[in-house]
């Protein structure tokens, strides 16, 4: 080696890289092959229990999960059962969302393993139990964008993220599919998981399929992963997704969807290069079908579609009607395969999708979004969380994020569902504030937010049936009658936040 000393360097106090003189004795080269290294030097640990211990998880800490496995998820229950077994207490569960299959959490809440929950939504028995006052500490509801923003700016710090992944290499590059084979669990985009992995103190990948290094292109990067656990099963494919989301054949939903498409065209946003996001079921999905016909007829191509991507959107891409796809969550196998195989079907994180703190956030680039609702009230406030009986039964998702970001936000909803009115005087729970809700499309006509004067004029001029929202509410009331008020207690069981973390509404306990 060379002969010099550090004192010979001028301005050495400004040079931040100087530590000591190089010494070859400090280097020991690893001459093992890639194959050997994958076997011996990797982040895979023997068991979930070991991973938990290595992560340094303690009582009272915050753990997170994604919901890309929807109602076929095994991960949340698997991890919570293990943590309960290991004796953990007072944990904060910050799942991106929870569904019907997570009812086992009820026991963990009762036994003190879980102290509080943060989520986008709750359903089934767990939701009913919480509405009935199961928890002392209220559940905090956040939108996808709100959660991502809170995680990134430290308002919701995650200590350990437990992320299920259909494939992972020994160093942590994980994906929502298995690249080499068209089988196994496929969830496509891992957008919510990406965000958690990038910000959690420790990230544990739970997979049932270890692949060779590198699992590129990767959804989750190895540099964000600490430990990997291999298990036999991470989820139920049937509960995760279907082969292809089918369009509804329900004539009422089709009628509403067709009307929503006409609203899009009348709005002036239907131009070459426009961008849109549609929903994933019922009328909001069927809008895609009518949009397609119009795009073909008028030779209009979209610059991108955002979502919640379904096979029907992929069809539009394949027909050359949409240039790019931005995907935070893939809803069926067709979409998952497209994400895997098509460079222009880009996987995006929850933050990229909807964070309120980034100017370039994808939702801010939308011309049109079509959303559904449980209830809309006469101030255009939208409820997607609680039913007319006051029980929690939904999820915020990206509702307020997209409604805010889109140039025109359209809510498709039937006037009534059975005997339940969907246009009401006051929403049971306000999730998306009326100020960012533009057009309501029902099977009995359309209402346009009076703040959107130009938009309203365009829709009226196009000959579509426009009413005051009060008229629609009166129609609903006339049909079903005036309902008795739901009896609540004073106890707050849920705190509903807007995208920026401010509290927009409170959910109270149902009186039995």
């Amino acid at each position, binding site marked *: 080696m060379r002969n010099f000393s550090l004192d010979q360097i001028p301005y050495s106090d400004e040079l931040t890289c100087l530590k000591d003189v190089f010494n070859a004795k400090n280097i020991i080269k690893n001459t093992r092959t890639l194959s050997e290294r994958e076997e011996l030097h990797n982040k895979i640990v023997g068991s979930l229990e070991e991973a938990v211990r290595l992560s340094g998880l303690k009582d009272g800490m915050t753990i997170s999960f994604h919901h890309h496995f929807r109602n076929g998820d095994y991960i949340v229950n698997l991890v919570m059962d293990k943590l309960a077994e290991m004796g953990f207490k007072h944990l904060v569960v910050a799942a991106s969302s929870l569904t019907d299959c997570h009812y086992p959490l009820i026991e963990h809440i009762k036994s003190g393993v879980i102290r509080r929950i943060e989520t986008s939504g709750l359903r089934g028995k767990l939701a009913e139990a919480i509405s009935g006052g199961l928890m002392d500490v209220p559940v905090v509801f956040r939108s996808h964008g709100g959660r991502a923003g809170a995680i990134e700016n430290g308002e919701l710090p995650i200590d350990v993220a437990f992320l299920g992944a259909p494939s992972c290499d020994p160093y942590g590059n994980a994906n929502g599919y298995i690249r080499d084979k068209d089988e196994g669990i496929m969830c496509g985009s891992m957008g919510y998981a990406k965000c958690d992995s990038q910000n959690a103190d420790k990230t544990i990948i739970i997979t049932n399929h270890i692949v060779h290094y590198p699992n590129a292109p990767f959804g989750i990067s190895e540099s964000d992963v600490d430990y990997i656990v291999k298990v036999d099963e991470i989820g139920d494919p049937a509960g995760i997704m279907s082969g292809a989301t089918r369009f509804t*054949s329900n*004539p*009422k939903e*089709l*009628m509403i969807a067709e009307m929503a498409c006409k609203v899009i065209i009348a709005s002036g946003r239907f131009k070459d290069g426009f961008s849109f996001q549609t929903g994933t079921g019922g009328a909001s999905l069927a809008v895609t079908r009518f949009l397609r016909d119009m795009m073909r007829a008028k030779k209009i191509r979209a610059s991108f579609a955002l979502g919640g991507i379904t096979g029907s959107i992929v069809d539009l891409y394949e027909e050359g009607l949409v240039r790019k796809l931005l995907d935070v969550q893939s809803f069926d196998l067709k979409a998952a395969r497209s994400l895997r195989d098509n460079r222009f079907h880009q996987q995006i994180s929850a933050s990229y999708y909807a964070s309120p703190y980034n100017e370039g956030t994808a939702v801010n680039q939308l011309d049109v979004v079509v959303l559904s609702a449980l209830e809309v009230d006469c101030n255009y406030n939208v409820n997607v969380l609680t039913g007319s009986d006051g029980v929690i039964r939904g999820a915020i998702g990206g509702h307020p994020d997209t409604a805010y970001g889109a140039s025109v936000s359209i809510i498709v909803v039937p006037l009534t569902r059975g005997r339940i009115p969907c246009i009401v005087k006051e929403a049971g729970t306000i999730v998306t504030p009326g100020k960012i809700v533009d057009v309501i499309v029902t*099977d*009995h006509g359309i209402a346009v937010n009076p703040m959107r004067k130009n938009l309203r004029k365009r829709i009226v001029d196009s*000959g579509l049936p426009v009413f005051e929202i009060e008229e629609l509410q009166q*129609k609903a009331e*006339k*049909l079903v009658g005036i309902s008795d008020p739901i009896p609540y207690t004073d106890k707050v069981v849920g705190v509903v936040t807007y995208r920026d973390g401010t509290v927009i509404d409170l959910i109270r306990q149902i009186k039995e």
Partner: protein
Amino acid sequence: MKQLRRTMLYVPGNNPGMIKDAGIYNADCVMFDLEDSVSVVEKDAARFLVNEALRTLDLTGKEYLVRVNALDSPLGIADLEAIVSTRKVVIRLPKTESAQDILQCEREIERIEREYNIEPGSTRMMAAVESAAGVLNAKEIATASPRLIGIAIGAEDYVTDLKTTRSANGVELMFGRSMVLLAARAAGIDAIDTVYSDVNNEEGFREEVQLIKQLGFDGKSIINPRQINAVHEIFTPSLKEIDKALAVIEAIKEANRKGSGVIALNGKMIDKPVVMRAQRTIDLAVASGVLEKERENA
């Protein structure tokens, strides 16, 4: 504007879900059925249901009909009482064989109008032929009563009566359709074609609608709201037809301004059938949204 009957949506009378939603679709007419779509043991239930629905629901914006059971049974008479008493609908007879059927029905309706203090003659009727005899008697049927607003053909039973089957091109219905149409025209009432049951065969449906429109029918029976748009589209007049019709109406206005008794357009005299046809074209154009109402009235 004359009542358009391009689409007549059939709704089973014992189905509360479908009855309460029938009004949201843009069909010109809705027909609640107490006959074929209701099982024998539920006839009373359907009667009560349709009666209550007619008395409560908002029925504006469409023409409502109720198909009652055959009058040769107490079912039919009870149906008439329950429905005529609501004062809101057109009575559609099931299988009409002869003018006698029309007259019998008329007599019952007259009695009910008297009993319930309803304006005599205000309850309208619609006939439906579904057999060889009915088709052959079409003209007598269609002209039997001033209460009649239209006559329909029911293909399934008709074709069975003929001892043949339905085919894609409908050649077996040719004569029946033509007879019904001619009868309708002779009587000055509407002609409504039969249902098309294969809801998923959009192309086949459109072909049939094109055919019956060309034959001269005023409308089609519909069994699923998804069929409505195709019919309205096909019945939309072309721009050429609309311009022609507007010219006729303009010529009439011109003649009125001049105080002339003779109306001429392009050197030709315009007589009543031409005028009525022009008006119908404009009505169809306005209903399809192709023409604005004000332009028509200007």
